């Protein structure tokens, strides 16, 4: 028995640990550091229909126990991803979750249709929550009805299960979660970044050229845990949790809160070996907690 194996719609995970979208590119750079086959899955950088060059720099700024980013979904576009990135990733025994972004329903649908047909793409992650692009992105993630319709449209064309990535910048995240579930989502990934800003001390102007950026890292973990906890109480589809995971103990927290698997974002920048390190440390952690299989932890916070 593999104590760490978790099965989710479309995904047979060796372990519940995967890098989060945008924090791992398309795997090449980390592939130089370790064997990507050890990972549970890989969430690749957002793919849009056309190539995007992203926002002006500076694109990142450090904050207390966190960072802001406004990359602006820079990516090689659908063709580049299909022709170069995904084929390169085939050498690894690891399911790919393709993060799909767009400006209007049509381009989400077109990207979803094409990318879901790639052989190693086992699930889509519908990015309705990117705070760093002018139109689209987050607007889809803040209105339950729009989120539901987009989910439906993408489900209609996708050849693999669809996970919807939720934005934390909302009054009631459970309403969005229920809406995407009603729209046919197979799972939820959460949270994307909180919108934040840092100013330059001397000039008083925003450091990030885009003005605002998305806050990630340990600072946001309490908000992410709360939201996973709330959402897991009201939906019947699995959650891949993220937001500030930096060490093995954080994984335990997200599973306890109700996630079935987790993604690690910002921590890859702090420690590029963080994913394999956590995977290695997990069995000992389970022993310490007196737990046989990792799935026993899922939703533990709700039980008494």
């Amino acid at each position, binding site marked *: 028995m593999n104590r760490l194996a978790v099965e989710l719609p479309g995904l047979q995970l060796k372990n519940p640990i995967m890098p989060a979208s*945008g*924090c*791992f*590119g398309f795997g*090449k*750079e*980390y592939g*130089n*550091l370790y064997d990507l086959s050890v990972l549970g899955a890989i969430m690749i*950088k957002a793919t849009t229909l056309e*190539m995007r*060059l*992203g926002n002006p*720099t*500076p*694109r*990142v*700024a*450090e*904050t*207390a*126990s*966190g*960072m802001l*980013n406004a*990359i602006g979904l*820079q990516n090689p576009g659908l063709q580049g991803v299909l022709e170069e990135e995904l084929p390169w990733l085939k050498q690894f025994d690891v399911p790919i979750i393709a993060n799909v972004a767009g400006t209007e329903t049509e381009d989400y649908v077109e990207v979803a249709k094409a990318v879901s047909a790639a052989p190693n793409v086992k699930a889509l992650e519908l990015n309705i929550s990117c705070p760093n692009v002018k139109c689209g992105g987050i607007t889809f993630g803040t209105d339950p009805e729009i989120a539901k319709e987009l989910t439906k449209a993408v489900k209609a064309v996708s050849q693999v299960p669809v996970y919807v990535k939720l934005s934390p910048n909302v009054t009631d995240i459970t309403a969005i979660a229920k809406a995407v579930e009603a729209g046919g989502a197979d799972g939820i990934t959460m949270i994307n970044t909180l919108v934040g800003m840092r100013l330059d001390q001397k000039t008083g102007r925003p450091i990030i050229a885009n003005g605002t950026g998305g806050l990630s*890292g*340990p*600072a946001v973990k309490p908000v992410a845990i709360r939201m996973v906890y709330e959402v897991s109480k009201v939906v019947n589809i699995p959650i891949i949790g993220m937001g500030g995971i*930096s060490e093995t103990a954080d994984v335990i927290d997200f599973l306890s809160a109700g996630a079935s698997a987790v993604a690690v974002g*910002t921590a*890859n*920048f*702090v*420690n*590029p*070996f963080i994913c394999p390190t956590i995977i290695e440390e997990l069995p000992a952690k389970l022993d310490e907690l007196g737990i046989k299989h990792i799935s026993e932890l899922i939703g533990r916070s709700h039980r008494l």
Partner: protein
Amino acid sequence: MIIQDQMTVIAQSRIAENIFEMQLAGKLVGDITSPGQFVHIRTADSFEPLLRRPISIASVDKEAGQMTIIYRAEGRGTTILSEKRDGDVVDVLGPLGNGFPLEETESGETAILIGGGIGVPPLYELSKQLTAKGVKCIHVLGFQSSDVVFYEDEFKALGDTHIVTVDGSQGTKGFVTTVLAELGDNFSTYYSCGPMPMLDAVQRLYVGKKGFLSFEQRMGCGIGACFACVCQTTEGTTKPYVKVCSDGPVFPAGMVAI
């Protein structure tokens, strides 16, 4: 190969106002391939400060397995770094990026090395290696004022060295271009590292000359995965953009849109 090394602080000293020189030992040193590469340093075993700090490699002693970095203690991360004591262990990711191309200058030719402020350090290893190869190096080093001048003697030992300060408190008063204009263009290659306005001015002065510039950008990963450090390229370049961390930090003059 890029490794994450727990390097040991061998020595640290303050060599100018807020400028520190730190010697580190570890196996990462064995992987350094060219002057101008940098390392990404985690300054505290804490979430605050969270991100690593990119710092150039200022000199390398492969036999001793040691390298030197020179940095300005300004913000939180570098201030914490400056408080490390001998024997402390520092988490260093590297070596990163592509350094200055030595092969672009032949033995017997002349190279001008132009540094500004904390852009000066990587030029030291560059000069050592060019000089060893038989290249004649001329150094033009710009600083704010005499308090923050460092390594004047070290550079002098390798070749002609012109110090320039904005306030005139040491060497020539003005900017590096003040001296460069006087030196003329009787050289084969120029190499430069410093603030963006300086790189811009140098590049404009030397239109048509062969040169290599080292850039700075705020970084996330430092290894090419996060797209934080991207620069647009000029027209006619094959790539629409480059990443300072993994494609650079050194680029041929004219390639990066400043």
